[in-house]
């Protein structure tokens, strides 16, 4: 016989797993530290790539000047300045990322707590059936 409460609970679980809970379930298999570190690593790689691309684009813009003054350019100074900017922005990005991903993980945990309650309810339904 169909149990209304059981069907409602199953619908809730299925809806959560197929929509807003998809990311939560995928990411909450990590510990919080691992999740934050993994995303931090991705961010550092992306940030470095973006920084290099922007440097290349700026260099392309000043290409004529760079070619004309290739011999007399203060390379050490250029590397120190670009390196410093890179490091300052990197620290900023890391700080923002740690805050952002920690908050996001906590949000996933909150979402999952409701989901676990529904799973417990489902388990109780199955246990009742087994006892019968």
């Amino acid at each position, binding site marked *: 016989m169909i149990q209304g409460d059981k069907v409602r609970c199953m619908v809730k679980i299925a809806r959560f797993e197929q929509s807003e809970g998809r990311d939560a379930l995928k990411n909450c298999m990590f510990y919080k530290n691992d999740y934050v570190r993994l995303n931090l690593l*991705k*961010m550092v790689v*992306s*940030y470095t*790539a*973006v920084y290099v*691309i*922007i440097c*290349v*684009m700026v260099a*392309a*813009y000043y*290409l*004529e000047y760079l070619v004309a003054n290739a011999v007399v350019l203060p390379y050490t100074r250029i590397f120190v300045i670009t390196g410093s900017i890179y490091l300052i922005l990197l620290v900023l990005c890391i700080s923002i990322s740690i805050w952002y991903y920690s908050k996001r993980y906590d949000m996933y945990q909150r979402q999952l707590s409701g989901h676990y309650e529904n799973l417990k309810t489902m388990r109780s339904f199955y246990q009742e059936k087994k006892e019968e």
Partner: protein
Amino acid sequence: MAELLIIKERIRAFYQKYSRILIPVFKFLLSLIVFLVINAYLGCDDALKAPYITLALSLICAVAPASILPVLAALLLILHIKKVSIILTVGLALVFLVMYLAYVRFAPRYSYVLVIMPVLYLLKIPYAIPLVLALYSGITAMIPMVLGVVLYYILNAVRQVVVAQTATTAGDSMDVYNQVVSSVVGERYMWYTIIMFILVFAVVYVIRRSQMKYASQTAIAIGALVNVIGFLVGEFLFSVQGEIGIMILGTILSAGIASIIQFFRLTLDYTVVEHYQFEDDEYYYYVKAVPKFTVTEPKKEVQRIHAQQENDNTANLRDAVQEAYRNSKEYVDAVPEIDEEFDFENDFKVDLEEMDLDNSNEE
């Protein structure tokens, strides 16, 4: 108001019923508009402007996930620009790569804003983006909004350069690239627009999250007002000619779009606000509950003017009764003695009843 809510419920019910068809159709139409705008605005390669290519790309977007639209739009743009200048193509591809690495890869949810923003700019209603995004998204939605504005100005600069000249040699191409970069970086009005959009976004976001009555509607109105005043000041500061009327109309239209979206998303009934106070082991709660407007669609009473149509069951029953009547009458006609004594109209029933009684006694 009640009629509007009924219409809203009908539209919502229709959408829920046919969402499997409507979502791909909407995605197809949006993609079609985006690709047509790209072809009209920056269509350098005639082969890519062919209708079957546009239709094929739109069909792919209709069935694929939503994040495929920005990718295909970027690809189409790059292929169009490739016809004019290789170095500009590389530059544009690097810009898209930066946008992907910096934002889209981490939060693909709002990546469609990057595509829609240039399209809305051409329709003169870019002001809808900060108003609408601030109403139902988080603070991080500001990033694609800003990137969208930058993308529009980049495409605008590319268009100006492409229309002015068609470069063929490497030297010319470097000039083209330098012109585009100078044009974008030196565009002070772009930076002003970005600041204004962030301001409007922040105003709408803060007001709609407040506990005041009609917070969302107030947020839209004040956001639109800030937008108009801000861009009026900007147009005087940067001497933008002939844009004031269009800007005001565009803002009104954008506020209208935001109001319609808000109406469909959430409509609250502030006339019956309820306040509750309760406690648990850890906290004391002060709760303000604002009910949503709910309407039940009035039931239609159907009055039948024509007689009920005959169906198979009633026809069979009528035939059976007529046949039974005919048989009994034939029987009576065949036996004249009975005919004399038997009154068909009155005695037939009695006779049947007696038969039933006999049967029941037998049982």
